[in-house]
């Protein structure tokens, strides 16, 4: 189990939290829970509700749609936010490719967290905008 201090240090290195000062990072570290998953574990399940928001600290996951690998996510990446914000089931399975260490926030807490930390929300907006640009490029 990492100390709160270690989690704060880990958070400080992630783009999503890059605009936060030390006191705000400490508050974030207290809000999230650390979670570990063994290799092969399915963290989010396509089509099923009961999700959470996850930020990867170490390890790698595969994004799988109907069993097919669509993308890999690693340190600093996050997942689960879209289904929480839209109130819909995940469109993909998220499967740990190696032992995974991440931070977890229960679904109902995400909106309150983002409203309390608008700079994190802004970073999330920028990330989603870039994903959308890429998705539209692929479609052309």
């Amino acid at each position: 189990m990492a100390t709160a201090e270690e989690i704060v240090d880990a958070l400080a290195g992630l783009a999503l939290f890059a605009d936060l000062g030390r006191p705000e990072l400490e508050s974030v570290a207290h809000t999230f829970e650390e979670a570990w998953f063994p290799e092969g574990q399915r963290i989010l399940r396509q089509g099923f509700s009961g999700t959470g928001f996850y930020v990867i600290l170490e390890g790698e996951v595969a994004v799988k749609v109907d069993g097919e690998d669509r993308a890999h996510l690693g340190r600093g990446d996050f997942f689960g936010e879209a289904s929480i914000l839209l109130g819909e089931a995940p469109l993909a399975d998220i499967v740990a490719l190696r032992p995974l260490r991440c931070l977890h926030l229960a679904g109902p807490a995400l909106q309150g967290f983002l409203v309390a930390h608008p700079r994190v929300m802004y970073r999330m907006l920028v990330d989603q905008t870039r994903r959308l640009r890429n998705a539209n490029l692929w479609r052309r």
Partner: protein
Amino acid sequence: MPMTDEQKVALLRGVELLAGVSEHSMAAIAQRTGELTFAPGQRIVSQGQLGNGLYLIASGAARVQRGDEVLARLGPGEVFGELAVIDQMPRSASVVAEEPTTCLALASWDFLELVESDPKLALGVLRVLASRLRAAGERHHH
């Protein structure tokens, strides 16, 4: 004659990105927008330049061009640079006024201030982006 806030809100209602924004927040956005006028032939934005905001055509007409190729023509109520208000990516095309054209512009730095002062506004935008991502068939990419 300058636009009233009500006229600005009515125009902003046509921006898909802002579809999840409350009436109250929309009024705050309207107050941050600026009205810009362009003469025929004048560039509104230039290809390759950093995007610094979104533009809505209030009146007039403009063409979207990349190099010498005209990609589209835009008229009143149409928006461009929508995503640049968030990510400030370089413009992928130029937009040139074809008639005397008035635009409503929202600068990216003003948008950031709005997000900080009214985070619920940003939640609405985040939801629109999430659902557009889903519609685009993209699950996750990096």
